[in-house]
């Protein structure tokens, strides 16, 4: 319970930072996506079901606060949470290499999903290859740097929380 409360606060803080502070540090309109880095980190640790639910809720929150309509970020982030959760089974969770590479691919996928949705429902006159070089790849590289800081913190907090819960359960059984 405590874990999910802290995660919720992290998402709210990320929204505030992303929509205000980070926009002052954008390089040619590319800034890191804190929401996506959190969704990838949590999906990698918690599996596809909880990854998808966290991605869905985080995306809906982002849509409600900043999006032009509801569902764009929700769909993209839910798909990433689900996919990363599936991939998380195949790698060691205590090593940084896998989430770092996954966040790169995940960011590109996330941006392609958004590109497709916006092209279909709103209309977009930007060529995809141009978007890839100008926006997607710089953002993916930013996110790779960011996950090196965020994933270890999420990992430690998650396992410390699990360990505490386990100890409490064992103590109850013993007495």
């Amino acid at each position, binding site marked *: 319970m405590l874990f999910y409360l802290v995660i919720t606060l992290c998402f709210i803080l990320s929204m505030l930072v992303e929509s205000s502070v980070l926009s002052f540090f*954008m390089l040619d309109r590319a800034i890191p996506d804190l929401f996506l880095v959190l969704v990838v980190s949590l999906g990698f640790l918690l599996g596809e079901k909880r990854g*998808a639910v966290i991605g869905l809720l985080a995306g809906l929150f982002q849509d409600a606060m900043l999006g032009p309509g509801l569902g764009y970020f929700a769909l993209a982030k839910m798909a990433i949470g689900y996919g990363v959760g599936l991939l998380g089974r195949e790698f060691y969770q205590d090593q940084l290499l896998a989430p770092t590479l996954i966040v790169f691919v995940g960011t590109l996928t996330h941006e392609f999903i958004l590109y497709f949705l916006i092209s279909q429902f709103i209309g977009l006159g930007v060529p995809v290859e*141009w978007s890839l070089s100008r926006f997607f790849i710089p953002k993916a590289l930013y996110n790779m740097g960011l996950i090196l800081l965020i994933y270890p913190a999420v990992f430690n907090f998650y396992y410390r929380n699990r360990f505490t819960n386990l100890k409490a359960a064992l103590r109850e059984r013993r007495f």
Partner: protein
Amino acid sequence: MAKPFQGRKGLFIFLAAVLALLLLIYFTSLRENRTPLEDAMLAIFSPAQKVFSSAGRKIQSFFDAIVSFQELKQENERLRRELAFLEGQLLELQELQKENYRYRQLLEFQENSSLDLLPAQVIGRDPSQWFGMITISRGYRDGIRKEMPVITDRGLVGMVYSVSPNSSQVILLTDPRLAVSALIQRSRDPGIVGIVENYPKEPALLRMTNLPPDCNVQPGDTVISSGLGGVFPKGLPIGTVKEVGEDQYGLVKYVVVEPRINFNRLEEVLVVRGSGGKRSSGE
């Protein structure tokens, strides 16, 4: 190796959620109003956004100062030399400035005196590259309504897109969904009216299209709003012509416009509440 789709129930739920979200996108993309829940969320978070936005500006100033520190010494020396030269010109310039001020006052009175302007702070920005949107600190409680033009003292910024009680979202000129009717200030020819819209290949610039091939436009010309369409008042500066080109068939001209405003550094804006008589405002 684990089989990812072994749990079919989970996959079906996931696909159902994808379908539901696609329907949600379809029904909310072209909507007129935000839901009450979205308005409530904006109302709850806008005070915190103000705080974070203010902190962001301070952090930016701090980093700007660090970056420029190395250059400060050399610049200081250069400025000292320039100061001596400029002091000699100061008296003459002060006279010119007073004269300019008087002319400007007259011009502003002539062109802008009927505008009812409301200042607002920029408290949030859309972090994605897709939509040029900002959130400002005024909402419908301050008299803001949808489609009100938003400007600064340097020129046109955009238009109010959605309104909440205490904040509003503004769609910028760089957003692909906004187009403004405009004309070239030098010629002021009413027959030559183009459409200024975003320039997808260069997000910091704008593009003015639909100009006739014989129109008199050249780099350095100023582009202003034409007032056609009734949303934006006539004469608001938009930017400067940077480059002139023709479409592939030579039927129409287009120009690349360098906006007068740096949309990434907007801090305060003015919302045009009306072009009629000014309201008595206590703001």
